[in-house]
C-alpha cells in the first residue's frame, strides 16, 4: 500500500469500498467497546497516586469510538464513483490469497507435529505451485534447498533451535 496522498480533490467512492470502510469502522468500534467492557473488571489500583490499569485502555477506546464515528460520517457523505468494469485479466486473484493464508496456517499447525523440515518444505512447494510454477520436480528441489538454507542459517550459524516435531521427539 502506498502512503502517498491521493491526488486531486474529492474523488468518488465505489459501493464496495464504502461498505468495506463502514464494516471496518464498525468492527473497530466493536473492539473498542469490548475493550471498555473488559476494562471494567480490572482491579482498582492500590496506589493513591496511580490512575490504575484501566484508565489508558479506556482512553484509547474512547478515542477509537470518536474516530470511527468521524470515519463513518465521512464515508457516508463521500460522493459515489462512476462504475468501471475491471477487465478479467486484471482482476485480483483472491482465491490464491485465501489459499496462501490457509497454507501458512496449515504450515504453522503442522510444524508442531512434523517439525520444521517437512512442514516448511511442503509449504514452499505448495506456494510455488500456487504461484504458477508448473515444473513440479524443480519446485521440489528449490523447496528442499530453501528449507535447508534457512535451517543452516538459523540452527547452525545462529544457534536458534527449530521445532523437531512432537512425532519425532
Amino acid at each position: 500500500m502506498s502512503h502517498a496522498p491521493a491526488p486531486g480533490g474529492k474523488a468518488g467512492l465505489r459501493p464496495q469500498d464504502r461498505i468495506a470502510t463502514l464494516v471496518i469502522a464498525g468492527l473497530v468500534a466493536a473492539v473498542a467497546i469490548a475493550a471498555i467492557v473488559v476494562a471494567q473488571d480490572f482491579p482498582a489500583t492500590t496506589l493513591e497516586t496511580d490512575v490504575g490499569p484501566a484508565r489508558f485502555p479506556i482512553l484509547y477506546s474512547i478515542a477509537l469510538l470518536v474516530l470511527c464515528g468521524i470515519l463513518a460520517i465521512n464515508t457516508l457523505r463521500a460522493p459515489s464513483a462512476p462504475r468501471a468494469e475491471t477487465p478479467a485479466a486484471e482482476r485480483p486473484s483472491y482465491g490464491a490469497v485465501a489459499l496462501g493464508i490457509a497454507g501458512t496456517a496449515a504450515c504453522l499447525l503442522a510444524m508442531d507435529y512434523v517439525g520444521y523440515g517437512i512442514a516448511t518444505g511442503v509449504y514452499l512447494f505448495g506456494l510455488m505451485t500456487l504461484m504458477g510454477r508448473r515444473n513440479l520436480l524443480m519446485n521440489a528441489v528449490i523447496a528442499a534447498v530453501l528449507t535447508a538454507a534457512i535451517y543452516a542459517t538459523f540452527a547452525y550459524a545462529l544457534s536458534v533451535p527449530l521445532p523437531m516435531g512432537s512425532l519425532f521427539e
Partner: protein
Amino acid sequence: MYELDMLAQGAQTLLNQPFALVLALLGVTLGIIIGALPGLTATMGVAILLPFTFGMDPVSGLLMISGVFFGGVYGGSVTAILLKIPGTPAAAATAMDGFELTKKGQAGIALGTATLSSFLGGTASVLVLIFLAPVLAGFALEFSASESFALAVFGLSIIASISGASVIKGLIAGFLGLLLATVGLDPMGGFPRYTGGYTELFNVPFIPVMIGLFAAAEAFKSLEDPAVRTGMAAALGRIIPPWSTFRRILGTIVRSTGLGVVIGIIPGAGADIAAFVAYNEAKRFSKTPENYGKGELAAVAACESGANGCTGGALLTMLTLGIPGDAVTAVMLGALTLQGLQPGPLLFKDHADLVFTLFAGMLVCYVMMLVVGLASLRFMGRILQMPKSILTPAILALCIVGTFAINNSLFDVGIMLAAGVIGYFMQKWDFPASPVVLALIMGPMAEASFRRALSLSNGSYDFLYTRPITAVLLLVAAFTLLLPLLRRLKSGGGAPPAGQGAVEATK
C-alpha cells in the same frame, strides 16, 4: 588536544592487536546478517555473542560486540528496502520509503544511500562520544519519567505525519496500536490485561506484529496478481548515488544524526524512536514533503543516519554514567562488568588508554561496516533477480522462522499470521500499518512513564507544565499533530473522503 592525542595512541595500540581487528570485522559481518534477518535484532546478536567474549581480552571482546551492535542497526535496512521486511524495529521507518524506491527500480541507490548514511551517522556519533562525552552526560540526568512520557507523546504525534492520504485512518491505526500495546502486564501493578489467560501475551508481541503487518501482508498481496506472480521482483540499478543527489540530502543526514545522538543519550529511547523522529523532522524541513511515503531518498537517509546516530549516544550514557541508553547497551554493560571495568566517570580516568583504544576501534568498525555493506549489496541485490514465484514463498518461510526464533514459540508465529492477514486487509482499504508499529513502540513507554511521573509528583499533574523539557516536547507534539490537519483545512478540502485511497489502490 587531549582527546586527539589519546585517540592517536589508541589507534596505534589497535594496530598492534590485529586479532581485535579481525574480531571487529567478524562482529560487523555477523551484525549485518543478524540485523537483516527478520525476528533477530542487534540486542539478540549481542546477547548471543556475549559468552564468547569471556575468554577474550577487553578490547577484542568489546570491539566484537560493538561491531555486532553497529552492523545490526544498519543490517535491518537491507531487507526493509529490498523486501519490505524490517529486520529491526528501526528499519520499519526505512521500509516506508525504501521499499517504494525498490518498486521504482531504484533499490540500488536506496541501499547505497542507506549504507552511506549509516556510516556517516554512526561515525559522527562516535566522534561526539569521544569529544563531548563529559559535556553531554549531564543531559541524560535531566531526563526522568515525565520527560520520557513527553518524548513518547512526541513520538506518537508523528502518526499524523506518516498517515498518508487519510489522517483519520492513520489515527485509527495508531490508536488500535496503542490499545494493542496495553495487552500484557500492567506496568505499575503487574495485572495481566486482555491476555485471556495466555502467558505468551504477558509481553507486547511487537516484533511478530511488525513482521506480519509489513512483510507477510506484502507477501499475501503478491499472491493476488497473476502478472506479478510470474515476473521478476525489481532491478537493482546504480548503488552509489550521484554527488548532486547526495549533496541534496547531506543536510538531512547531519540533522538526523544530531537527533539520533540526543535520543540515544536518553535512557530507554533507542534506534527505533530515533529513526521515526528523524523521518518526521526530515519531512518537516523538506521543501517537498508530499514526496515522503512515495519513495523519497532523503527519508531513507534520515532514518538510517538517525538510527545509527543513536549508537554513539547510547554508548555515551552507558560509559560515562553506567546508565544503558537502550537494550543493546544494557547487555554491553554486562560485558564491561565481566571484563572487570566499571562504567562511570572513573572509567575515563583509570582506564583512559583502553577506552580510547576502544573508541579508535569503533571508528574502524564503522569503516568496516561501510566496506562490507557496499561490497555485499550486489550480492544481496541478486535477491531481486529471483522470480517472485520463488521469492514470495521464501519471504513467508523467513517470516515464520524469524518470528519463531524470537521466543521459540509457535504462538508468536500465530500472532504474526494474524497480523499479516489484518495487514493485508489494511492495505486494501488504505489503512497505514506504520502508525500501528509506532504505537507499539511508544505506547508502553508513554503509559509507564506517565504513571511513574504521576506517582513521583504525588498525584499532581503539574509535571506536564512545570518541567521545561516536558512542556517543550508536549508543545512540539501538539504542533506536529495539528499541523497536517490545519494544512488540510486551510487548503479548503478538509480531510479527504474516506476510502479515496482505496479507489486509487485498486487501479
